């Protein structure tokens, strides 16, 4: 972990040091989220949709397991969803 000091510009912009930008591929246009941790602490996180999607699949899988579905039951479940979506 590394800490750097930067100064806030006129329009609230900050400059992330070039070595960090290059290492984390923070190119122009890359989306980041700024998380307000309170009491003057901010956390900047690069938005990674691939990681987010992987997390979503894991959450979905966990819920499927909790509901007791196995592979065969899921195939039947999907057939029913297909019929219902088609008939909707």
């Amino acid at each position, binding site marked *: 972990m590394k800490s750097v000091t930067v100064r806030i510009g006129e329009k609230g912009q900050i400059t992330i040091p070039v070595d960090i930008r290059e290492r984390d591929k923070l190119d122009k246009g890359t989306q980041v989220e700024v998380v307000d941790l309170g009491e003057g602490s901010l956390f900047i996180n690069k938005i990674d*949709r*691939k990681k*987010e*999607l*992987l997390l*979503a*699949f*894991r*959450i*979905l*899988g*966990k*819920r*499927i*397991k909790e*509901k007791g*579905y196995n*592979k065969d039951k*899921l*195939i039947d*479940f*999907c*057939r029913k*969803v*297909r*019929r*219902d*979506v*088609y*008939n*909707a």
Partner: protein
Amino acid sequence: MSTMLKCFVDTNIILIGALDLSANKISDEAGIIDIVIEGKIKLIVTIQLLDEYHEAAKRLVDKDFAGWIRYLIVDVSKPIFIPDDVCKELEPKFASLIPKEDLRHFVCCVIAEADYLISNNREFLKKSKNDVFKCVTPKEFLSKEKFVT
């Protein structure tokens, strides 16, 4: 011009893959999810397929989650989207061969000039068999195409 394989990935692959991923189980379905996330194949989708992904996730988790995961699938995979009106024009040609609830999925593969239709639904695969694109299970797909995952 992209040379990526164009694939229809059935809802059952998404759900079984998700189940296996959550259990850290290596499986063909989890492998398909991995190559989708990494952008190694081009998904073919219609509104009906996206609605199926959404409806399944809604029944299994909730509506907000379903919207989130559908958005992420589209955002990450940047799929080939086949509009309904385009599908409807071609559907009568195949209506006597393919079950009505599967027809849109089959037709979108024809229109997109798909390389593969991937499903675990044996009946769907059997009825969709044709000379234009391959209809395969995840296991068959991964044995035909080599991906480094």
